[in-house]
């Protein structure tokens, strides 16, 4: 175990580690949170390195490990990695698409001590779901996978990313979660980073649809109290205040990419000037305390107005840095999702306008594509939309 300790006495220890084991995935969702430039299999960390990273994470204070991707079960060593989590007392959460080899490995994962499964569902209607995920015959595989999860007695969370292509199915997602015996449902409106930013015009719902979806969730929460917990993530572009992204920059979470790069959040690589450290060069404790990427926007010192003097600065920590860069062109600006940002009205108008247009075709997620240029440019305060 590395002896380096955080150099800030008040620095809290991270509670969660998002382990992106691979970027490989049978699905091609147009809102994938992975970066546009995906890591290839040849560059992925080996089993021993992941085991060392997990050991360091446990020592550092991490409690939850999110085994994610891509599709984490695409890794041949997923069972071994899960066993390591169990041995270290780490709570293991499998974030999976449920397709491909996922079902075949599920029983072994259960035996290895897996704690929880989060299954993505793209839609309720199979044809719609498979259009969104870009994979034929995915829906029956997902349903069979979910059935086995609950049969084994593993807690199941369904994760539905909501956008204009499935916002009419919110009620259906709730019914599906109940039918499948899930304990939790995430109704997560799309966050527009990465692939979702490129596909924003194809994904953006209108305000009325968003409001309706919120009403449906609120009614269902009341009705299904004690049976299904529903977590709702509202879309930033229609919000009043931004969300505390990842619980605040460098405060709770670490994200390790398939190649071993450590990020404060999964989208952080879009901020090109940041320097990220690798697990191959530094211990996790060192990275958490000293990596320039983690210290850049930790706390409140980096803030400009209106964040700097805002009462909410330690509630939402200025919102999302990646969104500030994408929309305002400055990663240290107030997240334009915040009503106090000078760009907020423009963001709202932009969303309304995009939602009113005929949606363009999806740009599906693929490894080795060059879609950077398709991403919408930042907004200018004085420029007309």
């Amino acid at each position, binding site marked *: 175990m590395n002896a380096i300790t955080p150099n800030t006495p008040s620095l809290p220890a991270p509670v969660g580690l998002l382990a992106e084991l691979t970027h490989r995935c049978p699905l091609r969702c147009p809102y994938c949170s992975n970066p546009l430039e995906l890591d290839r299999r040849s560059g992925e960390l080996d089993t021993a390195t992941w085991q060392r990273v997990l050991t360091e994470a446990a020592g550092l204070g991490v409690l939850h490990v999110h085994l994610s991707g891509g599709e984490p079960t695409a890794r041949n060593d997923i069972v071994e990695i899960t066993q390591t989590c169990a041995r270290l007392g780490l709570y293991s959460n499998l974030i999976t698409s449920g397709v491909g080899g996922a079902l075949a490995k599920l029983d072994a994962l259960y035996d290895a001590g897996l*704690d929880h499964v*989060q299954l993505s569902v793209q839609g309720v209607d199979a044809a719609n779901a498979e259009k969104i995920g870009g994979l034929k015959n995915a829906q029956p595989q997902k349903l069979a996978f979910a059935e086995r999860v609950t049969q084994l007695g593993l*807690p199941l969370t369904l994760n539905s990313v909501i956008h204009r292509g499935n916002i009419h199915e919110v009620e259906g997602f709730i019914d599906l979660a109940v039918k499948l015996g899930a304990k*939790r449902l995430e109704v997560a409106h799309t966050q527009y980073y990465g692939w979702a930013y490129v596909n924003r015009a194809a994904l953006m719902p209108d305000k009325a649809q968003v409001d309706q979806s919120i009403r449906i969730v609120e009614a269902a929460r009341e009705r299904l109290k*004690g049976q299904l917990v529903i977590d709702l993530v509202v879309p930033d572009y229609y919000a009043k205040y931004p969300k505390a992204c990842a619980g605040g920059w460098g405060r709770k979470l670490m994200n390790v990419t398939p190649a071993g790069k450590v990020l404060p959040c999964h989208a952080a690589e879009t901020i090109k000037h940041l320097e990220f450290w690798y697990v191959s060069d530094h211990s996790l404790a060192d990275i958490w305390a000293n990596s320039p990427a983690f210290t850049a926007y930790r706390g409140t010192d980096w803030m400009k107005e209106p964040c700097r003097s805002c009462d909410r600065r330690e509630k939402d920590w200025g919102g999302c840095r990646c969104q500030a860069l994408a929309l305002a062109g400055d990663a240290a600006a107030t997240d334009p999702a915040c009503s106090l940002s000078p760009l907020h009205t423009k963001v709202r108008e932009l969303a309304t306008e995009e939602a009113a247009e005929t949606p363009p075709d999806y740009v599906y997620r693929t490894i080795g594509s060059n879609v950077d240029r398709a991403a919408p440019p930042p907004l200018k305060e004085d420029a007309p939309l």
Partner: protein
Amino acid sequence: MTAPFPTPMTDASQRLLSPEDLEAALRDIGTRRYHNLHPFHRLLHDGKLDKDQVRAWALNRYYYQAMIPVKDAAVLARMEDASLRRVWRQRIVDHDGDAPGDGGIERWLKLAEGVGFRRDYVESTQGILSATRFSVDAYVHFVKERSLLEAIASSLTEMFSPTIISERVAGMLKNYDFITKDTLAYFDKRLTQAPRDAEFAIDYVKQHATTPELQRQAMAALTFKCTVLWTQLDALYFSYVAPGMTPPDAWVPGTGLVAEVAEVAQAAGTGTVRSADVPRLPRGVRLRHDEVRGQHVLLAPERTFDLDANAVAVLSLVDGQSSVRDIAVKLAETFVADPDVIEADVLVMLNDLATKRVLER
């Protein structure tokens, strides 16, 4: 204005009929066009539909029921004679009731709930077929736009409804084990209401259709109404029987239901935790000591609960063997306190965790 629906161009439409012949001609329309002849109704009454197909019928038909008072209010608004209005307003009362929980719409909701639907889902009408909406709305528009005679004549399908209701109630009770007499309470009332309403309407039509043209209009109005009902069944058949083409957004089996919800809840061991219950932490929920922070935590799906000393004391005794009472008694010994007081606190805490789905019984 040309009639959008074909009118039977028989001799009867070209000469003035006696009131009796007019009634016979109107009844003849029913014998050829009323929806009891529709293949979907035959399947429904003969017990040939599965539960989901019966549900689709109940769900869609709700929209028709819900709009009937709107239709009747539109008719009422066109009546300049108070004595007519006094009679007609009874239809609205029958459907809406005099108070919440009363009336025909309420009884239809009971029917929909009886086959497993959630009331709010049915009332939202978000799962109905667009053809249902179009047909019903066309009916409402019709009575607003056409003459009062035509509006009243269009209600004459009530002359035929006692037959269909008797067939339906008998057939459904006999053929579907999920249908009870209570579920079908809607139709009990209609058996007496419909003939009373129809009697008034047929008298009015016989009295006011005094020229061949007016008589033709009355027959065309009734024909139109028959198509309103027929079209709704066409759409149900097309979507839920054959070829089974369900339009986007229409109800799909497995959604909007409450019955399965209750079954699942029972199976998963959720609900209120009581004194005699044996609580347990399910797979995926773990009590752990966090050495780095020097405290106990409860690890659960996507969340961590920081625990105080009392919570740790309670959860350490949640072993899947001890009841809430046992736990309270043990704690009362340890802390030298009243077990009833402790039990009350323990129940509050455990129920809170159960609501968050991290504790079962």
